[in-house]
């Protein structure tokens, strides 16, 4: 309705407005570039250009490259050979590492921030803003800085903080960076430390959207604090939980940097090899771009399938339609 009114106004303007003193030719080009039919396209043109060159072209190219053998100055189509080569031990190691990492980070990065947000939202807590900021500050650090810190925390020496702490429980020092399970632990810790605060903010926003009236009427019905949590807070938070989980799943399968800052791309026995790390290793370090592109396509498919499945299970799609 407002749009109709709009068009009316512009027409009035195009007929009646304009500078009469100007020569007609100039007026027409100016009028053309300034017409409401053209201006929006001028405004969105940077996006369209960037979309065509930096998204659409590379997407198509990624699929094409995955069927090619790419040597400097010589590109040959080799059918599905890249894909046939993919299913090798290193890839499965990367796949299992990435899957474990994703499950662990999703678990930590949904559960802990949820609890923290509920605590922070409670009317009993003081200095909320300060605590919120404190939880958030780690998100400002780059992954490299986080890597430096955690490498030093978990240094091999007996006196490093991590080894001192397990020493309290009578365990021997661990060379954290070079052992399978602890390498994974380090990756998960780096990611959790950096993303915790952001997820807390999402949940806080979700909590603040819950109408106070719901709690009031529950009070009238005599519900206790746990019933209120179970029947009001949790169901109301479901959309935001689905959202946070989805981005954590996608982020999990894209993991690379946490591994890179720990092992610079070459972890002992591939304990830190991730899918994107494998893509980097093959596509960039080994310069086998066709094979790398095929790995990329597989990663895309995995992320696509897993997130669709997750959204189907949780009914995330239905919610969007409502």
């Amino acid at each position, binding site marked *: 309705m*407002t*749009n109709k009114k*709009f068009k009316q*106004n*512009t027409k009035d303007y195009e007929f009646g*407005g304009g500078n009469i003193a100007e020569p007609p030719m100039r007026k027409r080009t100016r009028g053309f570039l300034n017409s409401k039919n053209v*201006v*929006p*396209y001028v*405004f*969105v043109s*940077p*996006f369209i250009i*960037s*979309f065509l060159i*930096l*998204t659409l*072209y590379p*997407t198509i190219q990624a699929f094409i*490259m995955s069927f090619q053998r790419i040597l400097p100055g010589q590109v040959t189509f080799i059918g599905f050979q890249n894909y046939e080569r993919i299913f090798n031990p290193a890839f499965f190691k990367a796949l299992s590492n990435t899957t474990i990492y994703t499950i662990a980070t999703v678990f930590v990065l949904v559960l802990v921030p949820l609890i923290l947000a509920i*605590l922070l939202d409670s009317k009993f*807590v003081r*200095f909320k803003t*300060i*605590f919120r*900021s*404190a*939880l958030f*500050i*780690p998100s*400002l*650090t*780059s992954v*490299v*800085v986080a890597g*430096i810190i*955690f*490498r*030093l925390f978990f240094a091999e*020496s007996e006196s490093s*903080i991590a080894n001192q702490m397990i020493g309290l429980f009578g365990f021997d020092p661990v060379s954290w960076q070079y052992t399978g399970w602890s390498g994974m632990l380090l990756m998960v810790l780096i990611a959790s*430390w950096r993303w915790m*605060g*952001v*997820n807390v*903010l*999402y949940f806080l926003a979700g909590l603040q959207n819950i109408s106070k009236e719901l709690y009031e009427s529950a009070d009238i019905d005599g519900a206790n604090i746990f019933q209120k949590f179970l029947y009001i807070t949790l169901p109301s938070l479901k959309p935001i939980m689905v959202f946070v989980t989805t981005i954590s799943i996608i*982020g999990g399968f*894209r993991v690379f*940097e946490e591994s*890179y800052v720990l092992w*610079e791309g070459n972890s002992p026995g591939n304990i830190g090899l991730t899918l*994107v790390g494998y*893509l*980097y290793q093959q*596509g960039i370090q080994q310069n086998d771009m066709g094979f790398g*592109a095929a790995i*990329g396509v597989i*990663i*895309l498919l995995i992320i696509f399938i897993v997130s669709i499945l997750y959204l189907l299970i949780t009914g995330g799609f239905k919610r969007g339609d409502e």
Partner: protein
Amino acid sequence: MKKKNDTVTKWLLTIIIAIIAFIALFPLISLIISSFRPSTELMRDGITFSINWNELSLDNYVYIFTQAGEYWQWYGNSLIVSALTIILSLFFSSMVGYSLALYNFKGRNLIFLFVLVIIMIPFEVLMLPLYQLMIDIKLINTYTGIMLPLIVSPTAVFFFRQYAMGLPQELMDAARIDGCTEYGIFFKVMAPLMLPSFAAMAILQGLHSWNNFLWPLLVIRSNDLFTLPIGLATLLTPYGNNYDILIAGAVMTVIPIVILFGLFQRYFVAGLTTGGIKG
């Protein structure tokens, strides 16, 4: 009776949260303290609980300010790249978002759909073809090459669109009647109204570009063009021969951002909660 109970809960909860907040900040605090420790000791022992207070000194910082020319070169590169990324991406993304929100034109919904789709596509999948493209158009090892994929940010477009949807359209009509061109309406009337969204996106884009790792890692070849994260990562070797620059240098990449955060908290929060979608 009930009041007294409330006070106890209040302080108990506050103390619990304070402990958690301390744990969250502990890694950064210990990094800062460690940056005053002798680098050889740090390399040997890692970060430790026990601190020899007599050994703390400004040596690492003195070294970095007097000897580490390449560190400042990286710092300068990061500043230039981040500043240009902020300016260009804000300029382009705001125009796109504004247009998607306030004009009615053919293909608008399709373009908006593309914005959402791009947010969903993992960058890593496009990385190799983009890298190839950068080689072909000779943008490898240039500032432009580092910035190009960030310039029209779909997240920023999305954010600007959401923000512009809430602006009063009557103002546009009023400006038209006053004889303002469509471009004038955007730059003189509407963009100033979108200032808070510019602040939030400046911070998101700045932070993203300052901390960006994977793409610069591919595009930059020579030491003198390294950005801070890439440069610092080259110092991260198991031999630890550069720990003086590494630790003090790491502290100095974080401190400016934490100060900015203190000043513009609100915008950081707005920017990062949208930006979380794409790392």
